[in-house]
């Protein structure tokens, strides 16, 4: 039984509304999904509320969430990064090509080399974005829209649009069951939680994180306070690139291949995760945990279509409508909570 003060903290946290929406959605899905007989062990299994579906959802969400944490940091600083999907593709393709060229390697070496190449490429891309935003004084929307096309183009040309396999030693790590039983792979879920936790600590506890909020809140006042505005701005794009690299590594390893069309259109899901999570597009506001919840929400909506056997043709319409509804309910709930708090 959680103590009342714990419950109060939970209810008061800025994530309360969104978490509530998510839990209600899961509850409804569990009720509506029906159940089936487990072919192996016997007994009934809920069609939604089962380990397999939940971990599958977390795996789907992990890419959005990991990149969403990066996007949240960029958005808090008052910027935007449209190039994360392209960075994902380029980093994955580069890694796969290097590993293919390197030939057979011992598992540890393949893993290390792959990770280094993937993250190295992604961070370099992020650094380029940051340097251009600061150096050219062009709005990041334009810079990253440009690099979005450029980087995907490079990936396309480099790979000749081929799908390149990555060594099975990587897949073994990404799909490791970690003792959970076969066909369950919690590694993406754990990576998502780890990145979110690190992002949350960065934003709420470190000097650099505080500067991100300050710069997004008021650049002029930040400059007048002697903050390293240029360095911080470059930093947020590097972080965003790094997050795309982590997601790309996980993705390529998990699915066993990389192509230049990977993560096509992900940038909007990623930004949506951040903004659904409450990050303000004018800057100064947002949280890593909320971005993760935002990603889970989006993936849940997609999952609902599958679980409830809706006509797949209506997928986009349902996702769009549900997204707007979720945010409206969240905001309404937050307002209600504030009113209740004020009434005390």
């Amino acid at each position: 039984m959680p103590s009342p003060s714990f419950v109060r903290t939970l209810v008061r946290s800025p994530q309360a509304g969104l978490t509530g929406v998510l839990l209600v959605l899961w509850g409804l899905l569990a009720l509506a999904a029906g159940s089936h007989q487990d072919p192996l062990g016997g007994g009934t299994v809920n069609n939604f509320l089962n380990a397999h579906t939940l971990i599958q959802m977390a795996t789907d969400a992990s890419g959005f969430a990991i990149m969403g944490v990066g996007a949240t940091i960029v958005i808090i600083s008052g910027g935007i990064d449209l190039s994360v999907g392209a960075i994902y593709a380029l980093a994955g393709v580069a890694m796969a090509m290097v590993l293919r060229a390197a030939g057979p390697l011992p598992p540890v070496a393949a893993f290390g080399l792959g990770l280094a190449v993937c993250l190295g490429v992604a961070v370099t891309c992020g650094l380029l974005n940051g340097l251009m935003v600061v150096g050219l004084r062009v709005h990041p929307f334009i810079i990253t829209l440009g690099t979005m096309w450029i980087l995907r183009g490079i990936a396309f040309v480099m790979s000749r649009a081929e799908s390149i396999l990555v060594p099975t030693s990587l897949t073994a790590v990404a799909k490791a069951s970690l003792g959970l039983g076969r066909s369950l792979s919690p590694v993406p879920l754990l990576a998502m939680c780890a990145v979110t936790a690190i992002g949350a600590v960065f934003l709420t506890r470190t000097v650099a994180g505080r500067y991100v909020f300050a710069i997004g809140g008021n650049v002029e006042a930040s400059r007048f306070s002697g903050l390293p505005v240029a360095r911080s701005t470059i930093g947020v794009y590097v972080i965003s690139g790094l997050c795309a690299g982590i997601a790309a590594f996980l993705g390529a390893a998990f699915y066993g291949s990389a192509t230049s069309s990977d993560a096509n259109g992900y940038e909007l899901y990623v930004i949506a995760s951040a903004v659904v999570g409450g990050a303000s597009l004018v800057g100064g506001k947002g949280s890593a945990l909320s971005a993760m919840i935002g990603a889970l929400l989006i993936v849940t909506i997609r999952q609902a279509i599958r679980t409830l056997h809706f006509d797949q043709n209506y997928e986009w319409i349902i996702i769009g409508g549900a997204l707007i509804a979720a945010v409206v309910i969240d905001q309404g709930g937050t307002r209600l909570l504030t009113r209740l708090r004020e009434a005390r």
Partner: protein
Amino acid sequence: MSAPAVRFAGITRRFPGVAALTDVGFDVAAGSCHAICGENGAGKSTLGRILAGIDRPDAGTITLFGEAVRFRQPRDAMAAGVAIVHQELALWPELSVAENLGMGRMPRRGPLVDRRALRAHAEALLARVGAAIDPDRRMGALSIAEQQLVQIAMAVGADARIIIFDEPTSSLGERETERLYAVMAALRAQGTTTLYVSHRMPEIFRLCDTVTVLRDGHHVATTPTAALDEAAIVEQMIGRRLEQFYPSHAAGTAGAPVLEVEGLSAAGGRVRDISFTLRAGEVLGLAGLVGAGRSEVARALFGLDPTARGRVRVRGLEATIRSPREAMALGLGLVPEDRKGQGLVLGMANRENGSLPSLPRFASRGVVDRARESAATGAAFAAMTMAADAEAATVTLSGGNQQKVVMAKWLTAESDLLILDEPTRGVDVGAKAELHAWIDRHAAAGGAVLLITSDMPELLNLATRILVLREGRPAGELARADATQASLLRLMSGLGAA
């Protein structure tokens, strides 16, 4: 007796954690100038905002000329003839002055804006408040005082029956203030009712017939000005007698030069040939009319003006200051004139604003130690008598309390060479006395202060020496003993000097 222009009855407004107004009721006589006084956070601006339809009371009624009104939005108040000059600038910085003045009633020719009529309208309004501002300039390019004049022109031009002035003079210089007084006289002759919020006592006695005092959101008294003196108003405000407005100075002995400036030019050459020496233990006043170039000197010294040229020595060592970071590394701190735009990140908590320039000092390996941060900023807030919750967002603070947070930033940073640009803008009498005492102590402890202020008594009282600027050039220097209001004004305006 005719009906009062405004009757407040039982006005109550609560915010999370604070009751801004509690059961406030009083009358404002038609055609009068009615002062509203109170400490920072007493609820003056909240009352003004409610009357102007910007904020809505939780309870209570407003009656205008005997007619009960209930404003749901600012438009309703405007339609009822109420206009407001906001304490904080509320303008469109990217639009021209003319567009700002025409907002809400753009003259049209067919479907298009009639630009010529718009400009003529703006010129007429600016002339009414005696402001020589080109209507085609971008709003954001104007100085704070000029923006304030535009804001006043906007309210006066609305031809309202009731105008609320919320600290209109806090960012104006002598000359603009005199113009405002003339505007107020003209309004009175027209029979316009004015509510006048100010922390400057002399102008209340000069302009207002009646004084209402609020304390902690409660109505204390409404009294004819003739029956009051300064001490009595302050006593009503703070609930006790304040013995000294300006504490006596510890006669500071000037030490070694801390800041030596030679042939400084700034703002693309608009300000030129500035030379002075500031010694440890000194408060050097920088005087001048609005636009004389005082803030430009401050910005240049703090590394914010890429066009700045000239020799600067800090503690005897040659220094080129190209950014606030470099300035801060040399021990400089700047309290800028525009607290909202340059001083504060309004969405952040007071604690976070207070520690912004000095955050690395409260961190080990890049991780902030909240306890140390809270302790240091809390001490600075206490020194500034900033009573609001340290964890509240700065945007929810009253104007004067926000100013105290800006001061607290540089207290927390422990800068020994402080450049203060209008440090007491909108700060109440009690807090002002605290701040003056702090500046004295800072100087006595070997710190140095470059003080820019349009508040004459403050300048005369605090500065050990006063450097006067006129149109971007040095116009003379006065020792404290020789400086009087009259001698300063002569130097500032250049009249009678030739």
